[in-house]
């Protein structure tokens, strides 16, 4: 069951200030309307995971870990590996997060991250087939939200992607249906680099990368996933408000323009990590 959430009391106090600033095209943290906060990406922070990453977007911090295990394929895709994304809004990340089974916020977050990665075919799932119909690699992406200051979707999608890019799996041999691992490793087959770009509508203004205070008073948000070709591969509207058509067209256009910047940053980070 999904129900209308409470608005935070701080939001009521700060709402006017934020909206007044927006009328002058200003934001509470001094950013431009379509400017990202400072982005830091650290790949491979957990040795025991196949791949991992810490992403900080302003004060939002997400850690993603990839674990690859052997499992059975889905009956309708016997030659493809599987992907599973899970998100934990851990209670250390924000006073409003409580421990317990994932709520609709965590589920939506995981499913939107999953959508960008799955629909852009970022993981070459056919290369993860070990024995058709019997054994495939299952890629688990676990997202741990460490500090929540808004825009968890973009930060989590980035963390998931960088964790995938840094992932390695052991080479193996198949003998009589048994998997025998070798010591050398190869990278996980990653084909695309989908970027999620989230806009929020505050009053009648569209802003990029909302922080927590902006999210608290936003009418609604729209996430656009963009693949390397510049096509849209995922979308999700959230929040209690509505968009008009011009706003939708503007966000999709802006998202395709913004995504190469972030992709470039990722490739720089990955290149430095290898050296």
């Amino acid at each position, binding site marked *: *069951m*999904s*129900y*209308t959430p*409470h608005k935070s009391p701080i939001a009521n106090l700060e709402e006017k200030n934020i909206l007044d600033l927006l009328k002058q095209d200003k934001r509470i943290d001094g950013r431009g309307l379509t400017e990202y906060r400072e982005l830091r990406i650290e790949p491979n922070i957990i040795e025991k995971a196949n791949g991992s990453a810490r992403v900080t977007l302003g004060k939002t911090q997400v850690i993603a870990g990839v674990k690859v295990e052997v499992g059975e394929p889905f009956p309708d895709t016997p030659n493809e590996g599987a992907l599973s994304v899970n998100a934990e809004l851990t209670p250390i990340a924000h006073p409003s997060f409580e421990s317990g089974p994932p709520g*609709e916020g965590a*589920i*939506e977050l*995981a*499913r939107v991250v999953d*959508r960008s990665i*799955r*629909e*852009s075919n970022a993981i070459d799932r056919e290369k993860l087939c070990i024995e058709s119909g019997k054994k495939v690699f299952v890629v688990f992406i676990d997202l741990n939200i460490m500090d929540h200051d808004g825009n968890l979707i973009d930060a989590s999608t980035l963390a998931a992607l960088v964790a995938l890019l840094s992932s390695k799996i052991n080479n193996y041999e198949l003998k009589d249906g048994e998997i025998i691992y070798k010591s050398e490793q190869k990278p996980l087959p990653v084909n695309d680099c989908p970027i999620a770009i989230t806009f929020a509508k505050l009053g009648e203004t569209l802003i990029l990368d909302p922080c927590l205070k902006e999210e608290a008073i936003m009418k*609604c948000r*729209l996430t656009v996933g963009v*693949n390397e070709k*510049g*096509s*849209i*591969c*995922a*979308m*999700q*509207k*959230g*929040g*209690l*408000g*509505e*968009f*008009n*058509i011009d706003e*939708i*067209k503007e966000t*999709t*256009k802006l998202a*395709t323009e913004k995504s190469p910047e972030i992709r470039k940053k990722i490739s720089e980070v990955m290149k430095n990590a290898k050296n």
Partner: protein
Amino acid sequence: MNLNKIPEKLIDEKGLRIDGRKLDKLRPIKLEVGVLNNAEGSAYVEQGRNKLVVGVYGPRETHPKHMIIADRAVVRCRYRMTPFSTEERKNPAPSRREMEISKVIREALEPAIMSEYYPRTTIDIFIEILQSDGGTRCASVTGAALALADAGIPLKDIISSCSFGKADGKIILDLSDAEDKYGEADVPVAIMPNFNYITLLQMDGELTIDEFNKGLDMIMKACMEIHDLQKEALKQKYTQNDK
């Protein structure tokens, strides 16, 4: 009972789809208002082979108390697939998919509900999918809008919803299950027809910006068509009662 085989192609040489539809045609839609006895508002929807019932209760007292919002009503929404609604039996426990869809349906409807008229109360929307064949979340929004109107809850507009997508390289309207599974993209949309607002928008697959914009224009027209059917369904019930 396997009704769906994996199709070789989704659009034939004549430009027709597996069920014989043209690219920009909706499936046959049947809407009925006031189908339940106890619910304050209800609606039955058939769209192609989709069959679903929506029941609305409220505004009523909020339980538990901590959920009360002082200046508006809480809107609760549950989208549920019956175990017999799919090819393989669906586990009756709520899935992650159902939880996400419950949320997006609620967020699609809330912009139209004048919830500030009923502070401290709850408006409940329950959706039961009896048979699913692609596009159930859209059909649910269409039905829920009718059930809310039937319950007498003040609305800014009757929300209408449908999906567009892409199959065999062509932009198509109102995707069936096979077109959703084997096609290239699926974009569910809900609109407030009298304001041209978009209240639900999701997408998976791959579309260029031009294809997306083309589909967006197509879906606005289709939703207007559904909106006319909704008005007709409401009139049907209330003119009958007058006699």
